[in-house]
């Protein structure tokens, strides 16, 4: 291609408006106008060195939210600051921390970032300011990569220790006696990316913070918490639940933003009767290809690891001749850290033009400014979508965000209700620090760290019964009014904060017999459907076939292959109610909440052709059943639908469950995999037609409980989605493919209406 023919972003925007192939599919075009900065002068009490350091770095004023944060923190209050991408959030904590350390060299601060990459980034940033001040302030990262010979220095002399929750959990707290100078003088705990601490992970981290506060109390410190969060519905509630401290919310964002075009792109319908649209993946290939051909730096987000790899394969092929394969890379959780660092660097330097990522890049990893962001499907939450959109055009200049909808009901709901997306944020980040499994695990760690005293609370939890349980289990030993750790293990080593199932499957590449190597890992539950034998596993765009899955030894052996399909597996689920905790009875309907047992088994997998997405074969999966005890919310309907007939009732329930499964995650800010919906024509416990929602993590993390309290809005929005669907009798976009009967859609609506009527009747 000749240089002058290369288009810039402006020209591309014109193309999108004019060209038939794009124009028709763009259903919403919002232009978010630039927003000027709201500036205020630097605080008057700022140390001269610090003030000069800021001014030397071109910071002569603060944004409003930075100033408020500074003042609130300096007055001794804990805060949570809501800060969109690139709004200068780091000053919200660096400023009060540095100011305090400058006045009191004994003061210490602990920074916690969800990933090592973010910690590295922040260390460079704070060190640049420190250097500028010329003061002797030490800031270090403390993580798995910290060399042994400087660890001692970090422990004793680090004013600012930058770490992650896993390290705090397994390396710092269990060795607190080596950190006396930190814990005696800890003034601040910084929790960045607060919104990532939700669900199972957040529930674990809340307990790690309980342990942290307990150790601080022991050494006589009482740190102020400084949290920063992306936009979610309940930042204050989340921060208060996570830290069990009173918080001040700071949301007067004063940072400027550039002009941003936000496009909703709905692929054309290719199958009218089934209402099937052209695959989002293929549309993204077209759009991203067009941009990358013009060397416009673009980031493509996809929802799953598999999707990332498929798009990567497409794109690397498409631009092979122009850019060389290395200029477009994948980025996701399964890659090894060194691989990821290399990609981050390439993006910043501009050597890499295109990156295809899972939400791993949603977080504040510094990759410089990209011009365009394309989302393959709705990322699942509004918060997540804005975070991803923030990757394009970070502060100044024009940028483009394209959200390409898939056929899934949730995507179709969002794309047809742009107001929903642009005006409200109903997502709440939920954690359940009192999930018994998580709680018990951290009680063990806490007892290892310091003995429990009678009457002592762990966070807000009364501990007596739990201590008795652990004593019966012979993990603790009671002597007088104290409980001591009495076991030869190191409990934190057996407890992972990140994955639901503790033991990950290691992925071993045996393509080259002489050089067998580990290329990644995956949690057990995902492995059931992604690493079964014969599955096609994609890694950096390379296809591997799983040759052997050793479930006992937790190893999957893979070999490189070159095939034109990917695999997709089914999971069969059985569910039983064990105990009913809450029950709301209406005339013809009941809403329940309680404990359930779920048994899941991977059954079969399908081979699906890349280009056409047609099914070209299938096979059985032989893996043991996994059992899960968790919490669940459900609705049971009385006789109503007797006239419907068994067959139609069943189809209707399947359709309703399918539709609900796509809307429910919206309300609890969870990944669709975190909450499951299962229908039963005749539930075991009450013999009524029932639809269950359950948390996928043992013991539950509060998702079902939230749904229990908000069942009506979930059904109401689901109804909107189903009626809004343009198909006649049900399609993958509303009631799914399993409900195949002619009447499925009508019956689904009937069931939803029946529920809504019954719930209203209570008020009569």
């Amino acid at each position, binding site marked *: 291609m000749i240089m002058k023919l290369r288009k810039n972003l402006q020209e591309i925007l014109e193309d999108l408006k004019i060209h038939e192939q794009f124009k028709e599919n763009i259903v919403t075009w919002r232009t978010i106008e630039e927003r000027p900065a709201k500036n205020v002068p630097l605080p008057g009490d700022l140390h001269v060195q610090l003030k000069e350091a800021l001014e030397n770095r071109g910071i002569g004023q603060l944004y409003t939210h930075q100033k408020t944060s500074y003042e609130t923190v300096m007055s001794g209050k804990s805060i949570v600051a809501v800060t969109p991408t690139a709004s200068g959030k780091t000053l919200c904590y660096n400023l009060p921390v540095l100011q305090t350390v400058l006045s009191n060299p004994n003061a210490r601060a602990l920074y916690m970032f969800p990933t090592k990459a973010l910690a590295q980034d922040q260390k460079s940033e704070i060190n640049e300011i420190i250097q500028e001040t010329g003061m002797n302030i030490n800031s270090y990262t403390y993580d798995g990569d910290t060399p042994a010979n400087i660890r001692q220095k970090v422990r004793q002399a680090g004013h600012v220790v930058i770490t992650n929750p896993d390290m705090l959990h397994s390396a710092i707290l*269990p*060795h*607190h*006696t*080596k950190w*006396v100078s930190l814990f005696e003088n800890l003034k601040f705990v910084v929790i960045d990316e607060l919104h990532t601490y939700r669900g199972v992970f957040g529930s674990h981290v809340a307990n790690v913070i309980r342990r942290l506060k307990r150790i601080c109390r022991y050494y006589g410190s009482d740190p102020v918490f400084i949290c920063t969060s992306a936009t979610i519905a309940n930042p204050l509630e989340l921060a208060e639940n996570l830290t069990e401290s009173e918080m001040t919310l700071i949301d007067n964002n004063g940072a400027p933003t550039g002009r941003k075009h936000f496009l909703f792109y709905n692929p054309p319908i290719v199958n009218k009767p089934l209402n099937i649209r052209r695959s989002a993946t293929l549309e993204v290939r077209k759009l991203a290809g067009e941009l990358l051909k013009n060397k416009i730096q673009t980031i493509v987000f996809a929802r799953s690891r598999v999707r990332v790899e498929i798009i990567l394969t497409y794109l690397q092929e498409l631009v092979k001749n122009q850019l060389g394969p290395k200029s477009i890379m994948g980025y996701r959780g399964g890659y090894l850290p060194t691989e990821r660092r290399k990609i981050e660097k390439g993006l910043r330097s501009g050597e890499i033009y295109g990156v295809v990522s899972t939400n791993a890049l949603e977080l504040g990893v510094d990759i410089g400014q990209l011009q365009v962001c394309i989302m393959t499907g709705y990322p699942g939450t509004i918060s997540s979508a804005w975070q991803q959109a923030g990757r394009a055009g970070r502060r100044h200049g024009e940028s483009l965000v394209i959200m390409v909808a898939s056929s899934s009901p949730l995507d179709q709901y969002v794309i047809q209700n742009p107001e929903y997306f642009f005006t409200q944020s109903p997502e709440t980040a939920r954690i359940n620090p009192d999930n*018994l*499994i998580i709680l*018990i*695990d951290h009680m*063990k*760690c806490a*007892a*290892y*760290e*310091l*003995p429990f005293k009678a009457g002592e609370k762990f966070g807000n939890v009364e501990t007596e*019964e*739990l201590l008795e*349980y652990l004593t019966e*289990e*012979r*993990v603790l*030993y009671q*002597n*007088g009014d*104290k409980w*001591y*750790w*009495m*076991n*030869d*293990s*190191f*409990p934190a080593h*057996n*407890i992972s904060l990140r994955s639901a199932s*503790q033991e990950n499957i290691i992925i071993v590449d045996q393509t080259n017999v002489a050089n067998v190597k580990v290329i990644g890992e995956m949690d057990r539950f995902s492995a059931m459907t992604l690493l079964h034998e014969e599955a096609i596993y994609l890694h950096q765009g390379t296809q591997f076939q799983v040759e052997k899955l050793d479930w006992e030894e937790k190893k999957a052996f893979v070999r490189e292959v070159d095939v034109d399909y990917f695999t997709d597996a089914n999971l069969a689920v059985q569910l039983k109610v*064990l*105990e009913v*905790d809450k029950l709301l009875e209406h005339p013809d309907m009941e809403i329940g909440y309680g*404990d359930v047992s779920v048994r899941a088994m991977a059954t079969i997998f399908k081979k699906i052709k890349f280009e056409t997405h047609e099914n070209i074969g299938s096979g059985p999966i032989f893996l043991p059943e996994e*059992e899960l*005890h968790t919490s669940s919310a459900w609705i049971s309907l009385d006789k109503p639908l007797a006239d419907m007939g068994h067959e139609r009732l069943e189809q209707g329930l399947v359709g309703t469950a399918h539709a609900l499964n796509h809307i429910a995650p919206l309300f609890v800010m969870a990944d669709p995999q975190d909450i499951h919906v299962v229908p039963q024509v005749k539930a075991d416990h009450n013999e009524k037609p029932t639809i269950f929602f359950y948390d996928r993590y*043992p*013991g539950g993390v509060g998702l079902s409980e939230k749904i229990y309290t908000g069942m009506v809005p979930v059904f109401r929005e689901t109804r909107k989605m189903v009626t809004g669907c343009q198909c006649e009798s049900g399609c993958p976009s509303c009631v799914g493919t399993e409900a195949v009967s002619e009447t499925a859609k009508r019956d689904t609506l009937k069931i939803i209406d029946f529920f809504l009527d019954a719930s209203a009747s209570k008020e009569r």
Partner: protein
Amino acid sequence: MSLKNKLNRLKPHLGSGKQEDLSKSSHLIKEEHSGGSVIPSEKEPEIVIPYLDQWKAEGALPYFFDNNYCLVREVRFPLDQKHGHFRFRDFLQAVKVWNEIGISHPLSALGHHPEELFFFDTETTGLGGGTGNTIFLLGYASIKGEELVLRQHVLPNPGAEVPLYQSFLESVNYKTLVTYNGKSFDWPQVKTRHTLVREHVPKLPSFGHFDLYHASRRLWKHKLDRLKLSMVEKEILGVLREDDIPGHLAPMIYFDFIERKQPEGMLGVLKHNEIDILSLVTLYTHLTFQICGLDEGQTSQETYEVGRWFSSLGEKGEAVKRFDSIAEGDDHVSAHAQLALAYERKKVRDWEKALILFQAVADSGISDIGREACIEGSKILEHKLKNPQIALEFVHKALKMDEKPAEIPPLFLADALKRIKRLENKCRKFPEEADKRTGNDLSIL
């Protein structure tokens, strides 16, 4: 719903934080309390100590502090008692040697009286560092007059760490710790647990520290697969353990002890710890004689390792002495010693003596070090003695060392070929220089 029901239901998911060993420990604990005594509590002025008679019979007495107590056992051994190949009295001799011989070495007791050394070992409830790993036994021995006095401070329950450390710190005024791997394990763990009670007990004094684990590694890693103290005892020190309780069972026995209070199992652990400490005395004595060259039974390999140790400490004179003493033979060790000596000579730029020694190693017929020696010799000839001709012969000799050329390491081969090329060039360019040098230097070959 009751919490207990819920906990029991979730039991399958609750497995991960503790280890399987619990099942084993529970059958140990099945027996009922037979002592019938009450657990001492702070409210009771009278502290009742379960099985006190049995403890007394074993030399253990309670130490009271802060309304709590620990147990301190004391055993005295006459200096003429033998432990392994040595008597405790021999340790006095060892300290004397260091004070008289004037050899500088990290294990040297120069300036110390025998009474100032403090042989120390602990038993803990788990492996590895970490705050929750409790020390339940602090044991140490030292010389007092005509006796070796061993004391063991026992933690009778996890709440009694204040009396434990109080009693311990009250009675330790020594200069130097002698331990087995105590630098990385026992002492840091003492520091960790001490931190938790630091407001109630005296500060930890600072000590010198002889860690005999590292010394044993240096001397015996060539003959022992594992350098556990029990291996060194058996293979080197002649210590026989009878009915010994394996150290890894100690945590289980302790958990059982605090449940049932019955001292029997603990007495076994105490015995185990006692032997560990006594062996430290023997080991220090033996190591002293080894290092100072006073052990007539020292193998030439041991002498060689001592030499290497001195060499790495920069003690050239002592190193050369050791190597010299074993360089005469025609076995592997002698050849290694010659090679080491050659390097020592090279370090002091005594090129000719070094060359003779490298030559001798080259002639030993041991291919790996022979090859190395040839190349070293050739380097001296090329760069220092300026004799490329003979240097070239040395390189060729290196390549002929093996019957099968395939056994020559590829990197070595590549380097040697480069060297040959360069030397051939030099020979061609400066033939007269080569000739000139011939004759005077080569008499030594």
